[in-house]
């Protein structure tokens, strides 16, 4: 078990180093960092002094090492467009994105799993067919389009919910703001969360449905029926538990995707999160923010993956007791 955890940690470290390398190369070789920091009228001598000061004349490997060490301390340099430290920019935007992603994931799970179980168990009812049709639309439509349609119907035509921003937020201290404690904050969360979570919800639903149908065909379910266990014990005990093993993996990975997909939703709803910041960085070629965002997302992915692995082990005794992962 410990060996397993250590191996996974080393793999995670490897992935982080690769991503750091990509970030570093973007940072170092795409465009000239000096040009971005100084005006047109800066003399070549001043530029050279700045190069020296930034360490851009050192061996590349040394620069990379310095980059990694700094990144580990959350120092990603200065944003080209905002002329502010990237770390503080991101820190001020992080709560909004994490809050949105978390609520979306919760929505996706809370709705997707029951819908998947239902459609897996009662395949031929009209409700199951309706769910499947909805899921097809959810999978096929681009996120931004769903957001626009929601705004058009719910905000513009019905006037029920706000269509942009976070509403009133409360500072919990340390710069961590939350919209979960105010009415307007909660109202503002609804549409973006549905938009962001819908795709994952349909994905989870289809996954749970597929797994459920697969599991219900297995011998051990047939044997459980032959032993006269109640439908409930079979469907929600034996079948669901076995279904959840792969569902946990995919859902965990989807949580990472949600954070990344937030870029689109944040744009549609003008949600002041990291995604919006990243998009502005792409539009304005603000490399330090792009590099930092990439690293941060990779870091979140790696952490989520690690937690998923541990959960997986906790659910499946074959891995827990068998020693090696299969």
């Amino acid at each position: 078990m410990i060996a397993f955890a250590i191996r996974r940690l080393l793999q995670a470290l490897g992935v982080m180093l690769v991503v750091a390398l990509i970030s570093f190369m973007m940072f170092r070789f795409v465009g000239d960092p000096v040009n971005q920091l100084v005006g047109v009228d800066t003399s070549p001598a001043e530029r050279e002094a700045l190069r020296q000061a930034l360490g851009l004349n050192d061996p590349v490997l040394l620069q990379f090492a310095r980059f990694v060490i700094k990144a580990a301390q959350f120092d990603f340099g200065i944003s080209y467009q905002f002329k502010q430290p990237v770390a503080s920019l991101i820190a001020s935007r992080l709560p909004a994105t994490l809050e949105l992603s978390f609520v979306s994931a919760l929505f996706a799970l809370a709705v997707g799993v029951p819908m998947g179980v239902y459609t897996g168990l009662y395949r031929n009812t009209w409700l199951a067919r309706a769910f499947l049709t909805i899921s097809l639309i959810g999978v096929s439509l681009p996120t931004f389009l769903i957001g626009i349609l929601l705004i058009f119907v719910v905000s513009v035509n019905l006037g029920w919910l706000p269509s942009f921003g976070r509403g009133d937020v409360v500072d919990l201290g340390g710069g961590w703001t939350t919209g979960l404690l105010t009415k307007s904050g909660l109202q503002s969360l609804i549409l973006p969360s549905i938009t962001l979570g819908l795709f994952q919800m349909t994905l989870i639903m289809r996954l749970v449905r597929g797994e459920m149908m697969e599991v219900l065909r297995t011998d051990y379910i047939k044997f459980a029926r032959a032993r006269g266990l109640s439908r409930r014990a079979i469907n929600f005990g034996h079948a669901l538990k076995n279904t959840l093993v792969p569902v946990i993996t995919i859902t965990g990975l989807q949580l990472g995707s949600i954070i990344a997909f937030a870029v689109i939703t944040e744009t549609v709803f003008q949600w002041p999160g990291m995604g919006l910041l990243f998009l502005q960085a792409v539009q304005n070629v603000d490399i330090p923010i792009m590099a930092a965002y990439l690293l941060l997302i990779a870091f979140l992915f790696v952490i989520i993956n690690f937690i998923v692995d541990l959960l997986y082990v906790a659910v499946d005794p074959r891995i827990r007791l068998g020693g090696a992962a299969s």
Partner: protein
Amino acid sequence: MSYATEPEGKAAQTAPEGVKGGTRPGFVRRIADSDIWYSFTRSPLTMVSAVVTAIFMLAALFAPLIAPHNPFDPASISIMDSFYPPIWEADSDPRFLLGSDDQGRDVLSTILYGMRISLAVGFASVIFAMVIGVTLGLLAGYLGGWVDSVIMRIADVQLTFPAILIALLINGVARAMAGPQSYDNVVFAVLVLSIGLSFWVQYARTVRGSVLVEANKEYVLAAKLIGLKPITIMFKHVLPNVLGPVLVIATINLALAIITEATLSFLGVGVPPTEPSLGTLIRIGNDFLFSGEWWVTIFPGITLAILALAVNLLGDWLRDALNPKLR
């Protein structure tokens, strides 16, 4: 997904359009008798999707012929014509069936032309991803060793991130390298590059898997024995055997590529407003959603939705028809 060992995969090349192009005797008969055709005729939804996809593609192809206006001809558009609603609303103009946009362009025409660009970028990206993915997959599977390790590790790392994020990053880098002035000239290349590079992994994995299976078969051994070069063996002998599953992925990816292009354009890093794609049109129209001119964004939106849904349904059906095990 295990397309790898599906021998019937090959049927994918012939089934959808094969009906009209029968040259050999009995060809039409074979198609009509095949399970693919059977499952096609048994699925009304799939038939509808096929018809819708065909209509959309033809409309896009012949846009200059059927569009009532040329939205890119400055002489034919007038700012005086801006914001006419669709003809069934009050104060409309019969020249603009689905209304006009902020610059006085006919919405129906911009949609037809926009679809052209969306589909063109979609097809080009899919082909680009296919070429890259198939080549790398063949190399990885056939050469093995460190080549295989490097390619597949890159694939693994890339798979951890959503395609849209990869596309955005590549887009940002390309933008930086091209410089702001020349960017508009290369925007299509950049789009195809960024979408293509974010989708190659699936092809590479599938092809590699198939190659590993095929490489141990006797015909490959025989080809080696008569002294053919590895490159010849790969492209002439192994490749035809893995094309079926690749075409299935390509169909599914077409919908994804169209959506990705639309998303990038919507986010403002895709096709510029001067030559709008569906995504760009939605982005432009989005600004007027609150002031009441809903048709500028909703009609392109619905078009994109139907197109994506139809292609997706076709892809879904094709995958299920070729891989009954997946259901």
